[in-house]
């Protein structure tokens, strides 16, 4: 029998239920987590109980840290999942590690999670700010988009996104003509777009996220920039495309860790998800399912829910499900899997609801993430 602490494996979904990221994570991840648990029970028939609780961290690091502590101390939570936004992820990872519990990060994207700030009880599952530009920038340069100009959200996340992308652009033979930094959050981007236009660059890289990206795209079209120069969204989710509409986004390149309409397996799962949420899943939500399922398998395999043992099993077993093929959890906590380069369809090409992407390329896992050799994580033995 599995030796489980406090009689149950308890999962806490700590996510943004109402704020900026509630569409790409939020209630959807809670549902995905529950689906993973149900599927696991149905398929693997575990001999331990599994419980799920959830809370809104309101994108605040202190609320997250407080909630995590409380969950560990009083609710006997074993593992916290999702953790959208980097500040909350970092805060919870630290607490979890101190208490010898596991964090499965699907929502947050900053690379420090598996680099400078890495620890041995965290797995970073779905994407990061390295993997996204890699695919997009390479592909766009290959298509002839050699000259780039960046519109960057003026904070750490935007800066690192810009930096990572610039490197890839130059490495692939492109050129960066300049960049402009906009306040975060912003609402009017026309000035910055005008600067980008004046630069004469072929590609305007949007090193920002959420509403900022959406507004940039919308206004680029309004100012007659988009057909002449093309945009590259460096962090875009299908929920963003959905709310902007194909009219405004058609032709854009973006990188994603998951697309619902990719193959039969993804379609089958996504349809089930759609039935519950009335929306197609984002990569965060799909990735979260995958991470939870893998974790539960590892608990079963390890015969215990003790963090270190489970982590060892998670690293040992490959990830094979609709989300990832032969995915692997590395020493630094990175789950390496393939990413996809997508191009947004023209409205005329879209045949049915949520038919948004052409998948143009599969980016192999080893290319998509920072090579272990370059990792700054102390856990990586060199």
């Amino acid at each position, binding site marked *: 029998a599995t030796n489980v602490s406090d009689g149950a494996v308890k999962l806490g979904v700590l996510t943004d239920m*109402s704020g900026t990221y509630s569409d790409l994570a939020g209630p959807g991840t809670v549902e995905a987590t529950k689906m993973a648990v149900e599927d696991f029970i149905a398929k693997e028939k575990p001999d331990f109980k599994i419980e799920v609780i959830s809370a809104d961290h309101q994108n605040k690091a202190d609320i997250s840290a407080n909630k995590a502590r409380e969950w560990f101390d009083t609710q006997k939570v074993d593992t916290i999942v999702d953790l959208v936004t980097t500040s909350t992820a970092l805060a919870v990872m630290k607490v979890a590690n101190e208490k010898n519990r596991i964090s499965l990060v699907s929502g947050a994207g900053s690379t420090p999670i598996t680099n400078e700030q890495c620890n041995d009880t965290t797995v970073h599952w779905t994407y990061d700010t390295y993997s996204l530009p890699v695919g997009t920038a390479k592909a766009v340069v290959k298509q002839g988009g050699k000259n780039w100009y960046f519109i960057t959200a003026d904070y750490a996340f935007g800066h690192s996104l810009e930096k990572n992308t610039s490197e890839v652009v130059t490495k692939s033979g492109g050129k960066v003509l300049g960049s402009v930094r906009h306040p975060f959050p912003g609402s009017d981007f026309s*000035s910055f777009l005008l600067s980008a236009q004046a630069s004469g660059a072929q590609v305007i890289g949007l090193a920002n996220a959420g509403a900022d990206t959406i507004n940039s795209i919308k206004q680029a079209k*309004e100012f*007659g920039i988009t057909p002449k120069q093309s945009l590259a969204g460096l962090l875009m989710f299908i929920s963003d495309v959905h*709310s902007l509409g194909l009219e405004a986004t058609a032709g854009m390149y973006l990188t994603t860790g998951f697309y619902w309409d990719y193959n039969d397996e993804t379609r089958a799962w996504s349809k089930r998800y759609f039935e519950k949420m009335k929306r197609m899943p984002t990569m965060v939500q799909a990735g979260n399912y995958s991470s939870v399922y893998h974790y539960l398998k590892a608990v079963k395999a390890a015969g215990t829910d003790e963090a270190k043992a489970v982590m060892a099993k998670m690293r040992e077993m490959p990830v094979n499900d609709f989300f990832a093929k032969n995915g692997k959890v590395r020493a630094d906590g990175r789950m390496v899997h393939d990413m996809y380069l997508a191009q947004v369809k023209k409205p005329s090409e879209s045949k049915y609801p949520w038919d948004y992407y052409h998948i143009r390329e599969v980016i192999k896992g080893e290319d998509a993430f920072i090579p272990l050799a370059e990792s700054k994580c102390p856990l990586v033995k060199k």
Partner: protein
Amino acid sequence: MDIFGIPIQALMGQLLIGLINGSFYAILSLGLAIIFGLLNIINFAHGALYMMGAFCAWIGLNWLGLNYWVALIAVPVVVGAFGMLIERTMLKHLYKLDHLYGLLLTFGLALIIEGLFRYRFGISGESYPVPELLAGGFNLGFMFLPKYRAWVIAVSLVVCFGSWFIIERTKLGSYLRAGTENPQLLQAFGINVPLMITLTYGFGVALAAFAGVLAAPVLQVNPVMGSNLIIVVFAVVVIGGMGSIMGSIVTGLGLGLIEGLTKVFYPEASAVVIFVIMGIVLLLRPAGLFGRER
């Protein structure tokens, strides 16, 4: 020709864009100033009502099939009526109290409105198309000016100066100003002050909603669009001199321009420049540029 290394053409473009943003500041701060003038309340819900205006336009289009032009008239009326309802049911009870309570109440209302829209529409928001009549743009040589933006400038100037004229130059305006100071006595002169207050609040709110409809085609319509903007607008109002109608219009437009210039020369500072200006203005003229010392 260059100015500080920036081609004059680009500069012109940026100034024009600054003016467009300034138009939004002007309409919003005008509404705040009018409300503040008569009710002595800082309408913290102004941003939320602006957001509501944008959403109502979207709802009108997508649920009821009402086009932009209908929305431009109907939405301010509807949201204005909602404002009047708020005034009648809640604000009304606060006039005898310290004016700070009005600020607090509208702050609470802003949270409620924003929360409800978040609940219903999610956070990433919806897109509103540019009306066909105003699609496309003019090539001005130095820049491509979308027709829609030109329309925004024109219509907001008309609305702003129209409101100014009514308030400063007509009898109705003198009632408004008198009501600001001593509503009780004004009522004793035979003027229906409660109605006037309700209508004024409704009008201020309608202005916010009007700005919302104007903004819908250019910005993503989302539940936080108002709260991001409102603090800047507060700063505009403080710089202009609170309650000063002309102050809010001129400062709104002026700060739009200054912000536009900052975006060219030092984009990192564009979010703070207004607050820095505010600090300086307050040091030199505590009552604001157009404000009266009280």
